[in-house]
């Protein structure tokens, strides 16, 4: 029944390479359900690294644990859109079925239930992960079926396949989603044009990074190509961790060859020999299809030695799976993770284009950026330049979710108004839209005339809609805890500030907040913005600050009139005693008038 854990074989499979540690820990977890302390000791010895290093990596990633978890490890996606679709009640139903608390393992070791940050299924939530499979469109019936399968100890590969179906909801196609690519066509055009001219074409197209920051792609490629050294890398950032974003999922599911073509074009342009796709662990259903796409392209001579017959153009791509860490979407943290380390953003300069993966020149591009680059290579700059705005050329994929009739992927030319997207998606009585996810921009109804573009409202792809029924304080509280959970902990402002902000938001949301909490929220957000090491901390306070400015009444009506409230709640402190004595009568409560 229980497979034996053969660490020697696993380490050998990965060539004894300590930079493969994250992948090794996935293999260990797949067999043992967790990473036993004895395995940590043995892995360190076999890989020739300090034990504490392995322990530190296990402790960093949400999907690894050095303590036993259930044989069935259930993780409910805890994004605000999952909650709006009823995830909390569904999670409770499963907890009740197994008589466990959140975070606990059932006594027989069968099952554990936890929360996880957004799983990238916002168009078909609520969603959960069980071991290395994802299940969307949860209903009480589906939860009942899952509980029965777990209780019967049915191996996952024998579960009905339809449980694992991931749907594709493309609601609007444009340049990218409407394209059909003959594999190799973009690459052929790039080779005909030459490396330098390909970079120039990407620059001429005005292509900017689609991961949110908007750095000019051509400039990035040019800097990498110019960096000294014989070895270069191209990395596809498929970490798509921003809550409410799922457009890369669609691209990798149905346009994988376009993305891989973009990577290969980038490799040709900068002179790279190796490519890596950093795929988030929440997308396990993409591992096999991506592997097949890579194999197809190898067979077609589009990857491997002498790609497309060009002597000296040797390039191949490997897949690397993340392990539940949002910060790894930051390109230097992603590189650290690729090297088998804790995903801590590096100090810059030097930048990855000169000192990236293994300290070699490295291009890191978002999935959507690479797809656009493939089209530019094939069709020239005009392929994207002819739509969009002067500063934001081309199209943008939006992941629309929340209170809309038609959630899904919408591809628009840059410059589309928020209102247009809302109308197309069938939003009724929207009071707010979170563009670009928690680290993006919170817009109130009076701002729906603003445009999705780098120069107005930039977006990493999320577009979460909240109608008038929604409590914006609860929305922002969810975001605050998201950042607290995902802070890497490297720098003081983000490590401590995200937790303080989240605690204050909960105090306010539960009616225990004071005006001092509101003041302190702004203060903490200011410290995080000014002093944080990377974008996670710098933007962590943004939703709170925006909500305080735009939805102030929702905060004020929850505050008690006192300026300062004691943080110690006497009545709450009696709760454990009440539970222990099974009492809940009036005399067991403390109230303002006295006991």
């Amino acid at each position, binding site marked *: 029944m229980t497979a034996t854990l053969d660490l020697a074989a696993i380490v050998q499979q990965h060539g004894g390479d300590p930079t493969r540690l994250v992948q090794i820990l996935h293999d260990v977890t797949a067999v043992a359900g967790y990473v036993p*302390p*004895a395995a*940590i*000791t043995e892995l360190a010895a076999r890989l020739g690294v*300090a*034990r*504490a*290093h392995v*322990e*530190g990596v*296990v*402790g*960093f*990633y*949400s999907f690894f644990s050095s303590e036993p978890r259930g044989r069935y490890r259930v993780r409910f996606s805890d994004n605000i859109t999952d909650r709006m679709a009823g995830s909390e009640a569904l999670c409770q139903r499963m907890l009740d079925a197994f008589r466990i608390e959140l975070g606990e393992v059932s006594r027989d070791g069968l099952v554990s239930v936890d929360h996880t940050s957004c799983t990238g299924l916002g168009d078909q939530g609520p969603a959960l992960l069980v071991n290395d499979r994802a299940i969307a469109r949860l209903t009480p019936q589906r939860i009942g079926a899952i509980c029965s399968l777990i209780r019967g100890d049915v191996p996952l590969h024998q579960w009905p396949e339809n449980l694992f179906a991931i749907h594709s909801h493309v609601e609007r196609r444009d340049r990218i989603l409407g394209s059909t690519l003959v594999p190799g066509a973009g690459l052929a055009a790039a080779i005909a044009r030459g490396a330098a001219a390909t970079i120039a074409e990407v620059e001429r197209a005005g292509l900017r990074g689609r991961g949110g920051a908007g750095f000019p792609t051509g400039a990035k490629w040019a800097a990498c190509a110019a960096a000294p050294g014989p070895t270069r890398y191209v990395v596809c950032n498929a970490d798509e961790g921003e809550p409410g974003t799922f457009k890369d999922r669609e691209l990798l599911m149905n346009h994988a060859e376009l993305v891989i073509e973009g990577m290969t074009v980038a490799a040709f342009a900068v002179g790279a020999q190796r490519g890596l796709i950093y795929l988030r662990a929440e997308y396990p259903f993409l591992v096999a299809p991506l592997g097949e796409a890579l194999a197809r392209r190898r067979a077609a001579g589009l990857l491997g030695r002498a790609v497309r017959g060009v002597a000296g153009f040797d390039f191949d791509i490997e897949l690397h799976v993340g392990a539940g*860490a949002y910060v790894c979407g930051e390109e230097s943290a992603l590189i650290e993770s690729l090297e088998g380390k*804790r995903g801590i953003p590096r*100090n810059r300069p030097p930048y990855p284009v000169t000192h990236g993966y293994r300290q070699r020149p490295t291009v890191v591009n978002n999935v959507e950026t690479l797809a656009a680059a493939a089209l530019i290579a094939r069709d020239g700059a005009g392929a994207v330049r002819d739509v969009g705005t002067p500063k934001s050329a081309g199209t943008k994929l939006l992941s629309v979710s929340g209170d809309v009739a038609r959630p899904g992927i919408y591809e628009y030319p840059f410059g589309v108004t928020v209102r247009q997207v809302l109308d197309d998606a069938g939003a009724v009585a929207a009071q707010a839209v979170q563009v670009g996810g928690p680290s993006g921009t919170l817009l109130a109804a009076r701002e729906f005339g603003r445009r999705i573009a780098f120069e107005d409202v930039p977006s990493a792809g999320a577009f979460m809609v909240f109608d008038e029924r929604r409590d914006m304080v609860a929305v922002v509280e969810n975001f605050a805890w998201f950042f*607290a*959970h*995902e*802070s*890497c*902990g*490297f*720098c*003081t*402002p983000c*490590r*401590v*500030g*995200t*937790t*303080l902000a989240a*605690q204050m938001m909960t105090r306010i949301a539960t009616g225990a907040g004071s005006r001092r909490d509101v003041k*302190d929220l702004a*203060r*903490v957000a200011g*410290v995080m913005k*000014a*002093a*944080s*090491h990377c974008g996670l901390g710098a933007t962590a306070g943004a939703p709170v600050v925006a909500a305080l400015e735009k939805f102030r009444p929702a905060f004020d009506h929850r505050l008690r009139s006192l300026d300062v409230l004691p*943080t110690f709640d006497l009545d709450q402190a009696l709760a454990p005693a009440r539970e222990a004595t099974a009492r809940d009568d009036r005399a067991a409560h403390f109230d303002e008038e006295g006991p």
Partner: protein
Amino acid sequence: MTDAAATFQLDGHDVPFAPGQSILAAAQAAGHYIPHLCYHPEFAPHGSCKVCTVKVNGHTHASCTTPAHAGDVVESATDELTQLRLNLVQFLFTEGNHFCPSCEKSGSCTLQGVAYELGMTTEHYSPLFPDRPVDASHPDVLLDFNRCILCELCIRASSIHDGKHVFALSGRGITKHLIVNAATGRLADTALALSDKAMTVCPVGVILRKRHGFAVPIGQRRYDQQPISAIAGEPPDEEGAP
């Protein structure tokens, strides 16, 4: 161009620097104090505490990891930056369990010294009171994790200087914590020796020699005599023990 006499402006003073030198290192060398915690001149800076944050040409940067450039206009001793640093130090006090009157490092503690320098009177935020058991397993060394500010100096000293990797980090975010390199998790089972560099670099009271307590009476210690800003750049008077 102006390599021979390259300078930047720090709060109106001309500060010379060598090519590649950080703003903090150049300022220290010129006798200007910029508050800091995780910086140590013998190790490569990594910029995690952010207490040394300054404004360079209007933008905030950690001065320990930011190379100086000729003509940079750097602000440090402004009300705005003092407030920012005060909040960061308050964050650190809030995060750990810091009870100065009962701490063996009181008076020689960099965190306490910087807090005094910034005029901190309370920690302001609701303390998190983390549960951090001490490790007294080692015959000669006590580890009191309650005071750890995660500066990583012991980690850097042990790996880079001592070649031992005795210390490392695990966890993430607010659960990030110092660990030691042993399957038992106990310091006694690591290769730590009293002569290690890692024994001497802790800016707070985490790594303590046993049987050395109160060798110097409180009131006569390093920062009891002079504020931290007055003795910046001088080497620590006594290694390890207060």
